[in-house]
C-alpha cells in the first residue's frame, strides 16, 4: 500500500477531559515518554502526550513473583513461562494537549473526552512537526503539574526533545521553545533552569 498507515499502539480504557489511559496491545510496547499520540473520537482527533507508563499484573489482586533465581538470562523467564506476556499489561497515561478538527489543529482541550475503546495511534514525524508549530501546548503541560507522579519539568523537557527531532532547525526550535518557557516560568527560575538544562545540547 502506498499510504502509510498510522501505527496503532493502544486502546483507551479510561478517559476524562484532560487525560486518558490506554492499554498497549503489546507488553512493554508503549510509545516513549513525552511522545505525541492521537486517538480518534469522531468528528475530532484528540492529541495527547504520554506522561506516565505502568506495567503490572492484569489482576490487581495478584502480584507477580520473582522467577529468575535459576535462570542465567532474563529472556529465559518469558521463554519458560510464555503465559506471562498475557498476564501482564502495559498502560499509558496520556495528557490531552489539543485536537484536530477538519484538518485544523487546536492547542487546547477538545469539547468531549475520548471514548473508551478508541484506538490510540502513534503520531508520525510529520504530524509531530505540524503539531509543534505552535508551542501553546506547553501551558497545558504546565497546568498538569501535581497530577502525575512524574515531575512536570521532566515531561516538558522530554516532549520538547521528542518534538525537536522532527524539526530540521532543531536548535532554533529549542531556542524558541526555551524562550516560550522562560516567559511561562518567569517566576519559577529554578524550575526553568532545570528544564533548560535538560533540553540544551540536543
Amino acid at each position, binding site marked *: 500500500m502506498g499510504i502509510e498507515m498510522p501505527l496503532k499502539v493502544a486502546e483507551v480504557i479510561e478517559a476524562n477531559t484532560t487525560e486518558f489511559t490506554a492499554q498497549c496491545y503489546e507488553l512493554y510496547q508503549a510509545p516513549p515518554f513525552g511522545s505525541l499520540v492521537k486517538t480518534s473520537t469522531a468528528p475530532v482527533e484528540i492529541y495527547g502526550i504520554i506522561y506516565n507508563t505502568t506495567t503490572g499484573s492484569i489482576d490487581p489482586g495478584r502480584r507477580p513473583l520473582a522467577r529468575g533465581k535459576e535462570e542465567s538470562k532474563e529472556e529465559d523467564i518469558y521463554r519458560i513461562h510464555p503465559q506471562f506476556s498475557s498476564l501482564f499489561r502495559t498502560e499509558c497515561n496520556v495528557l490531552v494537549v489539543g485536537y484536530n478538527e477538519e484538518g485544523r489543529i487546536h492547542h487546547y482541550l477538545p469539547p468531549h473526552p475520548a471514548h473508551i475503546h478508541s484506538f490510540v495511534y502513534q503520531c508520525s514525524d510529520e504530524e509531530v512537526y505540524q503539531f509543534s508549530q505552535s508551542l501553546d501546548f506547553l501551558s497545558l503541560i504546565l497546568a498538569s503539574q501535581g497530577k502525575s507522579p512524574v515531575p512536570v519539568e521532566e515531561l516538558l523537557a522530554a516532549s520538547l526533545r521528542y518534538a525537536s527531532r522532527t524539526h530540521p532547525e532543531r536548535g532554533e526550535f529549542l531556542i524558541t521553545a526555551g524562550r516560550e*518557557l522562560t516567559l511561562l516560568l518567569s517566576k519559577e527560575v529554578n524550575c526553568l*533552569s532545570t528544564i533548560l538544562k535538560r533540553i*540544551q545540547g540536543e
Partner: protein
Amino acid sequence: MNKNMHYEEQEDLRLGIVTGGSLTRGLDVKLDNTDLIEDVSVGTYVTIAGERHHFLGMITDISLEMVDPMLSINPPDLSNPFLSRVLNGTIIYGKLHILPQLTLSGSAASLLEGPQQVKTIPSHFAMVRQASEQDIARAFGEEDEKHIYIGNPLDMETKVCLDVSRLIERSNGIFGKSGTGKTFLTRILLAEMVQRGNAVNLIFDMHNEYGWMSTSESGYEVKALKQLFPSRVAVFTLDEQSSSRRGVSTDFVVEIGYDEIEPEDISILQETLNITDKGIELVYELHEHYGKKWLDRFLSQSVQETQEELEQRIEVHRGTLQALRRSLSQLKRLHFLVSEARQNSVASLLAYLNRKMNVVLEFGRYRDNILAYVLVANMLTRRIHDSYVRRKEQAMGESADEPVPLIITIEEAHKFLNSSVASQTIFGTIAREMRKYNVTLLVIDQRPGSIDEEVMSQIGTKMSCLLDNEKDIDSVLTGIHGKSDLKVVLSRLETKQQALIFGHAVPMPIVVRVKTYGTPDSYEHYGSITPTRAKLETEDIDDLWG
C-alpha cells in the same frame, strides 16, 4: 554607516516595544534583545510607531532589568549560547528610557504643518526602532537659506539644521567648559549667519579669534570671518599695533574719549575696579558736578582740588576720594581711552551695521582684560541699543524702515549678566526685552551657573558643549521639559565637537556632532548660499567709503 545601507536596513532597526511610562516621566522601552544594549547610546533618537502617529524621542537612560531577583543570586551561565539566546530578552532584558519629543503624523495636513510638539504618548507595546535619517531630516528640515546646518546627530549622516528666523528672534547662548569647542561652534554659527545675511552681527572678540586667522588648539590655523567674507565683515580694533602685527587688515581703530564714559559704565565695573558703594555714589556726584568731562577732570587734578570743589555740594571724605581715584586710575592703562576721541566710534560702528556689514571688534593686547572688555562692550552696546530703540520706534511710527536685526556676541557673559549687575547692564536689558527692538545677544560662557536666572530663562536657543558643574548644568537646563533626563545626556557628551542643542530654533533637543570647521573643505561651503539681500556688496561698500 553607509547611507544607502541605512535606508535598506530600516526595518532591521527595531529595538523593542513600549512597556509603560508617561508624557512627563518619559517612556519605558523593553529591548528585544539584550545584545542591543551596547549598541544604543544616550542622546540618540528613536522612532515609536503608535497607532495614528509616529513619535520621535531621545534615549535618556539605559538600564538592565530582570524578572526575578533570584537570578542575581544564582546567575545563569550566559557564556552558554543556548542559555544566552533563551534568556536574553525574556527574563533578563535591557530597558531604555525615552523622552518623547515630537509627533510625526502620517496625515496630509500634518505633513504640511511639520512635526508637532508631543502632546500624547504612543499606546502600549508600540514598536520602537532607531530613528532613520529621513525621520531626523523631517524634524529638522533641509539645509537652505533659512536653515543652518550645524552638525549631525550621533551615529548618523543626516544634517541637523537650525531655523535662522527663529534663531535671530531671540537671544541665544553657547555654553561649555573651557576647551570643549565653544569657539568652533560660535565660528560656524557666525559664519553661517554672515553668509545668509538675515541679521547683522557685532562681535566683541575678546580673544581675537573671530575676525582674522587664529590657531586652533590642535595647532593648525583656521580662517575667520573676515577672510571668508571680506566684503561683508569689517574688523574694528582697540589695538592697532597688535592687529597689524598679526597681519589683520583692520577697518577702523576704536578710540573712546573719557567724556564718553558715564557713571553707569563705572558702576558695572564696581567689582572689577574694586570700588565701594560710597565710591559709586561719588562717581554720580562727580558726573553731576563736572558734566561730561568728569572723568578727565577727576583724574587730571589733585584729590584735594576735587574735594574742595565738591564740598560746595556735598561732604566727602578724602579717603573715599583717594580710593576712588586709585581705582579709576586703572583706566589710564587702557590706551584706547583718550581725553577726546578723534572719531566717533559709535557712529562709525552704526554706519557699518546699517549697511549690513558685520563688525568684529578685536581687543588686541587687551585680550583677557576683563576691565577693557566689560567697559567697551557695555559702552558701545548701550549706545547702539539706544539708536536701535529710536529707529524701531520711528519704524513703528512708520517714518522709517525697521533696523536690520542685530546680534551682539559677547564672551565671558557672566561678567555682564551675573545677578548683581544684570539689572544694570544693557545686556541684561537686551536679554530680557528680547527681540522687541531687533537686538539680540549671542552669549558665550563657560560658567552659565553664574548668569542671572532671569536672563537665562529668556535665552531662546541654548547650545551646550560638555558641562560638569552641577550648578552650570542646572542653570542651562532651567525650564526645559525632561530636565533630569537631559542632565544625564549633557554630562555624557564627548569633550570635543559634541553639543546638546535645544530651544527655540530646533524642534526638539538634540545631541549633535558639530560639523568640522577649519579644513579647506569646510570653507568651500561658504559662498554656496547667497544672502537674502545679495546686493550689499560693492555698491554699499562704495557708499561706506563715500
